[in-house]
């Protein structure tokens, strides 16, 4: 197997041709603001995780996920994985809550 441990991390793209920069202004959706607020609580008030853990989790995303997910989608993926890793939430609690939210959303329509 050809393993190259000197390889650049997928996220570590300084110096590469990144193409056009989208300079359009945009607003944040409520869910994005909530994720930002959750991260502030987790890192500052509750001290359950660090911003470095957030980054580590984002950098661990598979390259196609890293490329295609939006900014706060990457955040919540990393926060979720960290909370599972740290034992703050269980996979079962996460699944139960997500089904409840899904059911609520389909009721609203």
């Amino acid at each position, binding site marked *: 197997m050809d393993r190259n441990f000197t390889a650049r991390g997928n996220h570590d793209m300084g*110096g590469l041709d990144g193409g056009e920069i989208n300079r359009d202004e945009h607003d944040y959706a409520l869910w994005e603001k909530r994720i930002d607020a959750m991260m502030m609580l987790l890192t500052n008030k509750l001290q359950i995780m660090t911003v470095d853990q957030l980054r580590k989790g984002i950098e661990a995303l598979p390259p196609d996920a890293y490329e295609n997910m939006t900014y706060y989608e990457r955040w919540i993926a990393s926060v979720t994985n960290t909370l599972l890793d740290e034992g703050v939430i269980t996979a079962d609690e996460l699944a139960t809550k997500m089904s409840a939210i899904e059911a609520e959303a389909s009721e609203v329509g």
Partner: protein
Amino acid sequence: MARYSVGDKVKVRAAFPPTPPTHVRTPHYIRGCVGTIERICGEFGNPEELAFGRRYGPKSMLYRVRFRQADVWSGYDGAAEDHIEIEIYEFWLEPAERENAA
């Protein structure tokens, strides 16, 4: 205590830890390059340990290091005085020979 002083020549370690699972803040493109200490920023928690939730480990000295763009990018065709400055932790730096040492 800071190991390096302003003006010292330093070489960024050519270490390439596989990321992930590690978290490294030293950009890939600068590893192995020689630069000059521009300022001492102070001591901060080590992000490579903080990335695993270890908040209370020893702090590390952080420096702002100045590199000539021509030393960083092969075939750089900008102005000779162009520089880039990057904040790098002490454990990523090793002493470098002075350029044009007498």
